[in-house]
């Protein structure tokens, strides 16, 4: 990566940053998408970042992650910022020494940084000073093998398999499930002060925390109450996977909710560094298996950005059709399971019926129902089979009927309204600050959609609306998703009209395998084939942040290449992870029964939360 000298990037905000902080701005460079990357002095990072948030309007913290280049070089902590007002991104990098990585926490600036910083701590060992709850998040708390995303950490871990199995099973579930331990394991929405308070409470009491103040009063009246701690999960049908929620209850009211995640951590990011660029595509659809094609295509788009490659017009439209179909697929399962959680069984059957139809489309195209792996860098795995577009058209024509029926079951159903309206409310500013994204953010009234803000696949040329909610409650999140499906159908209709003829893959032997006829009959073709198979696709050194609007929110790819056939860093900023971290803000003060409804309403998929 070549660093551009300071001052070559002509953006007012960066110039101002420079005049204000002088030497603390170490350098500025442009990435492959021509977005600025600013290197800052790690010791002044909090100061600079709060200035950016306060005076320059970078109100959205999209990502905090690490980057280790190996060989004892400093670890870079990468902040991805976005200003909703100016609609522009900014990437900030602070370098910390690999042997004692330390940095100030920006929890006080963006609440969204809570889990993101914990993840950097977990994966890279960077400790954030001032973070209220710096614990491992994905790996078990007593994990002893090191920091998995460091370059010196072997892919399979440091211990043998037998040792790893023994340690895992010796973990002692009772230790972590005891009342005391659950209460001490604080975090989530609570700010530092509260965590300490609860801990102090506990020291005096053996069987549960007592609310200070009120408890004393009640004790005088002979009505001492105790907070009860309830553990939901990790294996529970209403947590949509292996999620564990620890809830502190005052009667039926939720005082505090702490999600514990990582039970499905599969090391996608580490694996990504060991796979060739194209080989990562099958991994991407195993992350969000509810909208697999979107992930395939988003990843391919990000790598193409790194390569500076433009796909063919036909490919763009086919990709867009796949994306919108998958948005519907994902929203359908969302309605089905959310309705199921709230007690309505029929919508589940209706929506699964429709999902089967989309699965049939998947199967006709990719051969698999769910793990499609449909994209390739520079194109698609193949052109769509004959008749496929007609089948999609057929779906687009008939699907509104089911949508209507499902809506009739729910939208004006008094139980549904009672369980969702006014439950789990969050306002627009808070939603941005805690990091909500996708339909959850839009339900709070923020019209942020990547398809509008930074269009990809020519979304700007399609006519569609971005539905936004007014109250930011569970009901609004439902309505927004319903309307999004309608809009997806609109986009699909327009896309089906304009599918152009022509090749689906780019004509570039560096990226795409030549057709078999060429490989068999010409020496050029054979050489191109051989080189691509044996050496792999080479991506020039550089980095890129590329995001698409997946069904669950903004899905970001932060890829770093070193010119070789494999990525150096393969960071997936998955929307569910950030959305999940907003749960405590949504449920505190609500009733225990609402936690299921609210948790369902933010549409999580554990595969991408834990990665």
């Amino acid at each position, binding site marked *: 990566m070549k660093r551009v000298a300071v001052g070559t990037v002509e953006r007012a905000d960066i110039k101002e940053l420079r005049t204000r902080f002088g030497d603390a701005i170490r350098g500025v460079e442009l990435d492959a998408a021509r977005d600025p990357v600013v290197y800052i002095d790690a010791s002044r990072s909090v100061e600079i970042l709060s200035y950016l948030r306060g005076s320059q309007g970078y109100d959205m913290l999209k990502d905090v992650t690490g980057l280790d*280049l*190996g*060989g004892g070089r400093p670890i870079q902590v990468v902040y991805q910022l976005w200003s909703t007002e100016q609609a522009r991104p900014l990437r900030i990098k602070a370098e910390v020494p690999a042997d004692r990585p330390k940095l100030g926490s920006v929890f006080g600036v963006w609440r969204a940084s809570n889990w993101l910083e914990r993840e950097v701590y977990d994966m890279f060992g960077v400790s954030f000073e001032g973070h209220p709850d710096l614990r491992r998040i994905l*790996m*078990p708390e007593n994990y002893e*093998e090191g920091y998995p995303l460091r*370059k*010196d*950490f*072997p*892919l*399979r*871990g*440091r*211990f*043998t*398999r*037998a040792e790893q*199995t023994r*340690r*895992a*099973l010796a*973990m002692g*579930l009772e230790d972590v499930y005891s009342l005391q331990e659950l209460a001490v394991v604080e975090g989530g929405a609570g700010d530092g002060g509260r965590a300490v308070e609860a801990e102090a409470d506990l020291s005096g009491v053996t069987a549960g925390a007592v609310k200070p103040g009120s408890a004393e009063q009640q004790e005088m009246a002979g009505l001492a109450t105790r907070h009860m701690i309830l553990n939901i999960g*990790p*294996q*529970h*049908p209403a947590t949509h*996977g*292996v999620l564990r929620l620890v809830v502190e209850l005052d009667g039926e009211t939720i005082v505090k909710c702490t999600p514990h995640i*990582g*039970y*499905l951590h*599969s*090391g996608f990011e*580490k*694996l990504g*560094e*060991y796979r060739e660029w194209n080989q990562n595509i*099958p*991994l991407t659809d*195993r992350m969000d*298996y*509810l909208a697999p094609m979107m992930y395939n295509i988003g990843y391919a788009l990000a790598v193409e950005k790194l390569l500076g490659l433009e796909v063919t017009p036909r490919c763009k439209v086919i990709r867009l059709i796949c994306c919108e179909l998958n948005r519907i697929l994902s929203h359908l*399962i969302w309605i089905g399971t959310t309705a199921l959680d709230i007690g309505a069984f029929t919508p589940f*059957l209706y929506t*699964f*019926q429709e999902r*089967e139809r989309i*699965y049939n489309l998947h199967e006709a195209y990719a051969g698999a*129902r*769910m*793990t499609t792996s449909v994209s390739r860098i520079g194109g698609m795995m193949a052109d769509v089979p004959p008749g496929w577009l007609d089948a999609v058209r057929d779906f687009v024509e008939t699907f509104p009927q089911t949508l209507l029926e499902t809506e009739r079951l729910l939208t004006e159903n008094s139980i549904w309204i009672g369980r969702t309206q006014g439950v789990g409310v969050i306002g627009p500013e808070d939603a941005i600050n805690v990091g909500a994204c996708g339909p959850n953010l839009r339900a709070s009234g923020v019209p942020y959609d990547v398809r509008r803000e930074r269009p990809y696949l020519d979304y700007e040329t399609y006519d569609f609306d971005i539905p936004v909610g007014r109250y930011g409650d569970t009901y609004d999140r439902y309505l927004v998703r319903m309307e999004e499906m309608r809009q997806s159908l609109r986009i699909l209709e327009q896309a089906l009209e304009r599918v152009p003829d022509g090749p689906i893959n780019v004509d570039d032997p560096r990226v795409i395998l030549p057709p078999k006829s060429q490989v068999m009959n010409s020496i050029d073709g054979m050489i191109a084939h051989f080189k691509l198979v044996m050496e792999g696709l080479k991506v020039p050194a550089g980095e890129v942040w590329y995001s698409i609007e997946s069904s669950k929110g903004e899905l970001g790819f932060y890829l*770093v290449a*070193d010119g*070789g056939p494999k990525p*150096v860093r393969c960071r997936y900023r998955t929307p569910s992870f950030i959305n999940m971290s907003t749960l405590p803000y949504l449920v505190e003060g609500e009733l225990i029964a609402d936690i299921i409804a609210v948790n369902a309403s933010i549409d999580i998929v*554990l*595969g991408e939360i*834990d990665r």
Partner: protein
Amino acid sequence: MANREKSNVGAERRHVETEIPRNWIVTRLDDLISWARRGSLWPMPFGTACCAIEMMATAASKYDMARYGMERLAYTPRQADVLIVAGRVPYKIAPVMRRIWDQMPQPKWCISMGACASTGGVFDNYTMVQGIDTVVPVDVYVPGCPPRPEGLLYALLMIQEKIKGESIADLRSREEDPERAGKPHLPAEEVELIAGPFGNSTFQNRVSGLESSSPILRPGDRKE
């Protein structure tokens, strides 16, 4: 052979028909019990990842596994017969899975659904259990990534087939040693043997972003 079976069935039917008016039948106890067991299996869905979605599809409208007697998905291990492990099982969730298995009453069976549950699948890395059979005993493995709903249905039918052959007099397979609860299912050497890197994955010991080091050859090479 086929003929004889056929005639036997006929004889049985006649027998049943003549005895039913008097309200009793004669059969082997094993047959009766296994018939009852296999007709009312209560699966305990332990779904973690992608495979769980296919498990849901198996239970939903089109495939409808209730047809085979799995009317009730038991969400509590205490009232379940078949543990269906669908999806990846990282080490962090392994003790939970083992606990669920220990909590299920005998007789119980286990289905490992998908490549990840059966072998770790593509996730040959620091976090994934390389096959749940290192943690709990498995009766049927369903290949696929993910297996189709038909695959899972077939596995359930295979469990039913297996139950048919079991006898209540044979306690060997149903004995449980309370000492073993919460422990790995296999001894350490066997875990090493089946969980060691093989094939393509031995050459993936890329140590830094810019250079590769030699591959791991034997599982033992990685001992501390």
